[in-house]
């Protein structure tokens, strides 16, 4: 038994505190908005009386501390307010988009992890060779491409030849032309390919470069020399010693880059008109739909915090030294 459960406990506590900070930050950020929030209600021509009623409805007539307490209570109950535009509860507005985004992001991320780790390891192993240089330059290139532009490039040059859809999440006429659960699934997948490929390629650049340098760092460690002295083949050295050690920082990195991935999802979903959480954010910015924006920000932050906690747990599992 390892005496590391206090580590898990401490990470859990940190996650909880972070969640609280995120919730509070969310409150503060939106109170900092210039002008009265009713001015954001696209209510330029409204009467003063109507505005007062609105303020009451949204609880804006109370003092800031009171508003904060009410906000905390509501958030704890999962009540994130109602959308200015559709008047529906924010949580309902966000649920479907999140369900659309998650598989797409997952597909792209898994793609990039597999590709990034393979090429990064290969490059480190064959350091200084042509394939290493190829991987480094390729990684640098993809790492430098603006996400939204890469998405547009895929639409311009890849969508046509591959007959892939470039907009929306499903073919609206599918039910008439070609019904069936299987066809529906295939159609969904096709709509997912280009957005996922964009995420995959952008992340690939970052992952491959970092895997390479982490691997190189591991290969410079003394225990690799010991392994060589023990007569292990290069492949065994990589598999048994270098890989596991170099993956330790990568695990954290992959989970940490989730925030970045979600940011990328906004750009990608905007380009592909993919009805996920990113497009929802884009549209609520345009509509000045603050409650939805606020809710989305909170949910995404929570997701990242939870993912970070999982990364901590994973690290605990992978590295026997983590006890303090």
């Amino acid at each position, binding site marked *: 038994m390892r005496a590391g459960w206090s580590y898990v406990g401490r990470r859990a506590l940190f996650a909880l505190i972070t969640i609280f900070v995120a919730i509070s930050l969310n409150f503060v950020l939106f109170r900092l908005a210039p002008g009265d929030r009713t001015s954001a209600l696209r209510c330029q021509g409204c009467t003063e009386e109507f505005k007062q009623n609105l303020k009451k409805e949204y609880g804006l007539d109370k003092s800031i501390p009171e508003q904060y307490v009410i906000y905390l209570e509501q958030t704890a109950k999962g009540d994130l307010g109602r959308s200015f535009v559709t008047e529906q509860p924010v949580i309902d507005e966000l649920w479907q988009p999140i369900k659309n985004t998650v598989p797409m992001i997952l597909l792209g991320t898994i793609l990039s992890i597999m590709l990034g780790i393979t090429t990064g390891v290969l490059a480190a192993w064959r350091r200084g060779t042509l394939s290493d240089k190829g991987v480094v330059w390729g990684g640098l290139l993809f790492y430098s491409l603006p996400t939204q532009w890469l998405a547009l490039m895929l639409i311009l040059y890849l969508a046509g030849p591959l007959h892939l859809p470039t907009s929306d999440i499903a073919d609206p006429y599918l039910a008439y032309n070609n019904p069936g659960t299987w066809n529906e699934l295939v159609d969904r997948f096709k709509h997912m390919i280009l957005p996922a490929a964009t995420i995959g390629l952008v992340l690939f650049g970052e992952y491959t470069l970092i895997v390479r340098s982490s691997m190189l760092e591991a290969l410079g460690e003394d*225990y690799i020399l010991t392994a060589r002295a023990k007569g292990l083949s290069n492949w065994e050295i990589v598999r048994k010693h270098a890989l596991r050690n170099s993956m330790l920082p990568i695990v954290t990195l992959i989970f940490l880059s989730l925030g970045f991935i979600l940011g990328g999802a906004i750009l990608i979903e905007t380009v592909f008109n993919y009805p996920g959480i990113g497009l929802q954010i884009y549209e609520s910015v345009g509509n000045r739909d603050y409650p939805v924006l606020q809710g989305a920000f909170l949910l995404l932050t929570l997701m990242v915090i939870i993912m970070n906690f999982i990364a901590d747990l994973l690290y605990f599992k992978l590295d026997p030294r983590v006890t303090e």
Partner: protein
Amino acid sequence: MSVLAVEDLHVWFELPDDKELHAVQGISFGLERGERMGLVGESGCGKTTAILAMMGLLPPNASAAGRILLDGEDILAGGDATMRLHRWNDIAMVFQGAMNAFDPVKTIGSQIQEPIETAGLAKGKAARARTAELLELVGISGERQDRFPHEFSGGMRQRAAIAMALACQPKVLLADEPTTALDVMVQAQILELLVRLTDELGLAMIMVTHDLPLVSQICQRAAVMYAGHITELGTTNELYHHPLHPYTRMLFGATPDLLAERDVVSIPGSPPRLDEPIAGCPFRPRCDSAIDACALAYPPTRTAEPGHSGSCFVEVSA
């Protein structure tokens, strides 16, 4: 026949800027079965490079020449491919105490098992049992093989490293500063262990260190290295009482003596750079008995009596 013999071994390192560093400049010595020999010198004199060459573990920017004979067979001639067959099976190594010779995320036991399984000596349960035996041999309970390196103290890690070196029953053990970074009590225990094991198992050992007095306590013979050359080779007794080279004499003086019979005298200056040729004797700038001839050529090797030779123009005596 010597179990291990080195004949005119050279090692060079390619440096950036088209320079070359001649780290080992033609060393020769033989090691008898069951014998303990010290390879002594300051850091940067080529002793670690020499034993890495014997293990075939030189980095890719190195090149080597000469012969390394294991039971009469030249194992250097075949390059890495031949070296790999003998590595750990015939010649094993105990790495510097200060090094992280163990992978931090794997158990000590699994790392000792690795060479056993790689060499095909035992598998699974049998390999585990063998690992436990090896650990017991160095004074660690066999049950502790499932522990991780960070759970061991420095001394225990070094014991485990010795157990790991013995895994494939080698003929020769190379120990590179095995006691550096350990405290004095633990140092003594590790040395005692090495002496006991080599005696019991009939193992030959080369111990690399900068500590000549220590070598003279546990080794029968010693080779003193300076600037890539062996400057003096002989029994530790001869070296202490009748040194042929001023460097040997100064090395004995440079280490504190437990009995404090004499004052510690450190050798002024530092070893020369080896990336360009040196005219004359490389030790000349630091030598207290240099004569004019020393500036002109590398001194010839004189044999004072069978098995004791040194390279110096000047006859010195303690």
